[in-house]
């Protein structure tokens, strides 16, 4: 066992509203770790805590053996990259400019890139199949392409861990699988740890190695997809009737929400 992230008795609240309650878990090296749960269950807050964007009030997060609060900002940025859900495109940066920004934690005082940084950025764009768009402005790209740009930026940061907040939200089916395939390939080829928040339990089942199911700021279940995605745990977490069976694609669970109209027939 070789945890890269250890969370111990973590509590977090916005003012008086408690968002996370007594959370403890570990994330292993080379894991594809997906945090799932209903709206308002504290998924994004947990991810932001892991990224060091907000500080844990109570409890402890250890990154590679040291408390995350002991890391200087730049040092932390060389360990963890973060891709947020909403991406600002008000300013017309080009694709390669955005990707190259991933090098900033590795740059000196003036923030000027060297040849090596340009090579890393080129490789990241190649990996995400963005080479042909390098000089396009990001406000001219589609949602899926834009998401790939920000993932390329995270790759360019060359960290051990990449955190993503719902990278497939608002993407069509083709782009959803494309992004998830990309992350899976990245995890395997670059030997990194991927931690992702997702709304989509089926994508989590298909790509995740470990799943963490949250409800109202508490852990309902944690483990392999077939351990977490059971009828009992899901119904407890989401409070609606769901059908869980095995996917025809392979040995992972498939979750189907049951429409109210069909429930009445069952009664």
């Amino acid at each position: 066992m070789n945890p890269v992230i250890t969370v111990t008795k973590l509590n977090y609240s916005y003012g008086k509203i408690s968002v996370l309650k007594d959370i403890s878990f570990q994330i292993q090296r080379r894991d594809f770790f997906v945090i799932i749960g209903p709206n308002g269950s504290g998924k994004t807050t947990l991810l932001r805590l892991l990224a060091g964007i907000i500080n844990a009030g109570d409890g402890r997060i250890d990154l590679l053996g040291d408390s995350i609060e002991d890391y200087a900002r730049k040092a932390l940025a060389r360990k963890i990259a973060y891709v947020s859900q909403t991406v600002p495109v008000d300013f017309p940066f080009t694709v390669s400019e955005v990707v190259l920004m991933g090098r900033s934690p590795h740059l000196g005082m003036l923030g000027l890139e060297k040849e090596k940084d340009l090579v890393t950025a080129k490789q990241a764009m190649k990996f995400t199949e963005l080479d042909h768009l390098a000089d396009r402005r990001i406000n001219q790209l589609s949602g899926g392409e834009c998401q790939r740009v920000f993932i390329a930026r995270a790759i360019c940061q060359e960290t051990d861990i990449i955190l993503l907040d719902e990278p497939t939200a608002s993407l069509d089916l083709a782009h959803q699988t494309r992004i998830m395939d990309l992350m899976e390939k990245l995890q395997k080829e670059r030997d990194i740890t991927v931690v992702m928040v997702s709304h989509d339990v089926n994508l989590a089942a298909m790509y995740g190695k470990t799943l963490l199911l949250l409800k109202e700021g508490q852990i309902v279940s944690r483990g392999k997809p077939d351990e977490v995605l059971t009828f009992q745990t899901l119904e407890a977490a989401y409070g609606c009737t769901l059908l869980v069976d095995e996917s025809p694609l392979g040995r992972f669970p498939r979750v189907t929400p049951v429409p109210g109209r069909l429930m009445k027939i069952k009664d």
Partner: protein
Amino acid sequence: MLVSALLSVLLAGTMYLGISVGSTGSNFGDSVRLLFMDKSAGSVPEAIIRQIRLPRVMLAALVGAALSLGGLVFQALLRNPLAEPYILGISGGSAIGAIFGIILGFSYFPGVSIMAFTGSLATLLLLLVMSQGQTLIKKDSLLLSGVMVNAFCSAVIMFLISMTRDARLHNIIFWLMGDLSSADIGKVGILAAALLPCFILLFWLSNIMNLLLMGRDMAQTMGVNIKIVTVTLLVVTSFMVSATVSCCGLIGFVGLVIPHLFRIILGSDHRILVPACVLGGGAYMVFCDLLAKILPSQGEMPAGVITALIGAPLFIYLLKRSGQ
């Protein structure tokens, strides 16, 4: 590098024009000769160029550079392409401070300048409180807050002016509209000493401004200390703006026109935009001041009139376009 070189030439060119053209009308070759070669002369044209036109052109260049850079920083910091010190009321706030200084009979430096700086920080604080936290980034809420702060500042300024009943009244009003004609070499020196370190500091922070545009969360996870950077940028910019306001009053929209122009031509990389805004903003301001000098058939008009005449329509156009 190439861009900087081209813009330097442009700045030098407009400054040369600014020196050469004036109501006494000396020709172009003369002005160079008077400036660089003929030191012994002591003639009237030489005095005009050395003591009136040269400081004025230098003042215009400094003011234009500071205001453009101020706009650029605000746009990056608030992630809002329409942000600008004048539109947000920061300039107005420092004008209130400066007028207080003038009425209380302070000297230009340090009294009026410190009052102006205090005024701009106070408005900045007011603005931040009004549109707190995340909503600051939303265009409408920020601009509305700015409009209100501006309206309030104008009211206070008018109030202060109507309480003033002596010869200073005309001076205050003319100065308010953005007047560069009061330049003297000492004033320019102080302003340059105040602004140049700010330019250097902002150039040093230019890559961080790029990262800020990726959103606070992503900037932070790329190693930016948001709190320190935000406070530094806000304070430095307010300082630059209040320094220019206390020198030559309210000159609006320069911080909108120049960064926008350069973003269209050069893209969004602030490591290029910061030097471009310093040089190009300087050139633009010298040019506007030149227009202000030569357009009226009699006398002169404040340069702020020209910048507003060019800038305000552009602002409306941009606002309309960004709404789509």
